């Protein structure tokens, strides 16, 4: 299973260190509509200071609509302008690696090269 940005990920030792198994509904903060752009780790591509940070090469997703929404409310007004919608995807083990960190509500999703975000994510207004 080859991940997107596999070459960059390989340069970081033990990255990602674990993979949560099974199918999960995961929520991603996006711009106004679903596009490839909303599923690219913009920060690490723009900012070399994150090159060696493993989870920067993945995508931040949340375990519920409410968790994603709560996080958005904690962004400054200037940072919040990049996000206006929340998208939900049902992610299984063949779609990539789901890394759970210190915050139980946050996962980093490392999609495979073949993973199609347009097909697998849709804009939602609540959890279900």
């Amino acid at each position: 299973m080859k991940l997107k940005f596999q070459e960059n990920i390989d340069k970081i030792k033990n990255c990602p260190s674990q993979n949560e198994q099974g199918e999960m509904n995961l929520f991603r903060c996006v711009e106004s509509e679903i596009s490839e752009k909303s599923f690219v780790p913009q920060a690490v591509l723009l900012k070399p200071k994150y090159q060696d940070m493993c989870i920067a090469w993945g995508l931040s997703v949340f375990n519920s609509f409410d968790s994603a929404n709560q996080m958005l409310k904690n962004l400054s007004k200037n940072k919040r302008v990049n996000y206006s919608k929340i998208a939900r995807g049902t992610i299984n083990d063949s779609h990539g690696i789901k890394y759970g960190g210190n915050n139980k509500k946050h996962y980093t999703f490392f999609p495979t090269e073949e993973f199609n975000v347009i097909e697998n994510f849709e804009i939602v207004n609540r959890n279900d």
Partner: protein
Amino acid sequence: MTNQNKNIDFDLSQFQKIEDIIYLDEPILTHLIKNNKHYLLYLVDTLKISDIYLLLELEEKTIFDYLTKQTTLREVIYTNQNFIYKIEQDFNGKIIGVDITQSEFLPENYLPTQDSYLNYEPSTQSYYYDFIKSFETKAYLRSLREQAFYIKLAPTSSKYSDTIGFNELVSELLKNISTSFKNFLKADFFESFKEIMTDEKKLNASFKKLAPDLDYRMVDLDFGSFEIGLAVDKVMKQSIENKEIRDWAIDVGYKYQNIVLDDDYDEENVSNIISNYSPEDRKRIFEPIFKITENSNFDFKVKDSKSKEYSKILIKDKAKIERILPSKLEVLEDEKSKEFEIIQVTTIKEKDKVRKTIRLDENTLFESADTKQVVLKKKDFEKYDYALEYDVEIPLNISTEKGQVIFETEFDGIEFKKVLDTVKFDDGIKQIISSIYEYILNKSE
């Protein structure tokens, strides 16, 4: 923002990173520590070539409040009274500018929404897993401490300055207070619920189940002279299903403080004590306390809260002690559930040995003493079908002499006495009860 100090030296690597609290493709809010001081680094804007952060120092407790949804991030930033550093860092991580500002000068664009609450759920590997638990424990202790009362035991002699001996503290002081408190709990429980739960076995079982939760929580401590803060835990007692028992369980700790650890034992308190608790219960509850208050080597003091002044527990009028503690009344442990019978003991004694006593089991009636005192009550009369219209408490001395049992008592100034063979112990009890009953009947006619 005024007084811009561009390009001053600032090294973020000197801060130890605890954890990213908010992460969205990049760290948004990060908890840092430096010299045991806590900071939040908050990414508020991304420009063409740089990121803008706010760095603010705050109390650890504020971070706990934020992580547990007790305050908003906006409130955390907006109410911060320290200087706030506005840091500009390029995308390579180099700091290219630092301004110092204060929360009231921050532009709205740098702030989160009004309802920027966070309900952080740390995994076991997270720093905040133990952090939140530890703060919850501290918060529990703090709430108990706020409602605690304090007792203080201090030596009256200056020989060892203000310090108190460990053994005397444990064996003469704490043991007596603990004994008194335990006896108070039981007596007050029976007094409060005897009408509701008439089955004595059920009453006993309920109390035994309840007892572990009734203990005071020790929430503060000071030494030299010995000071201790004691609190009634209300939270844990909420699990008691019966509302009346729950209310009693919450109240009884304060009741003990007000009644037993009373600083002056005024007439109203003494009268209440005498009317609400039996002589046996009073002896069990108050004798241990009076052992401390009457000991001239110590001062026993009490106060309602940490900030108040101590008052010495002092019963100036010794007649009050005599009224509370019934004289010549020996209290039997668990007397309510005890039944007595005579047993014969056969033993072998070496002829040349001088010792003339044998050791009896501690549960036997006569133990090492020749005389025992029990209290005859209304229910003892009922056992022999003698119905009394009121409660009585008649101390009955039972002694043995030359194979005979002697039952003696004085009631209403009249002496009653029966002497029988030891095998007729039950008859002796019956006969003396019969005589007293006959006297009571005759007197009422």
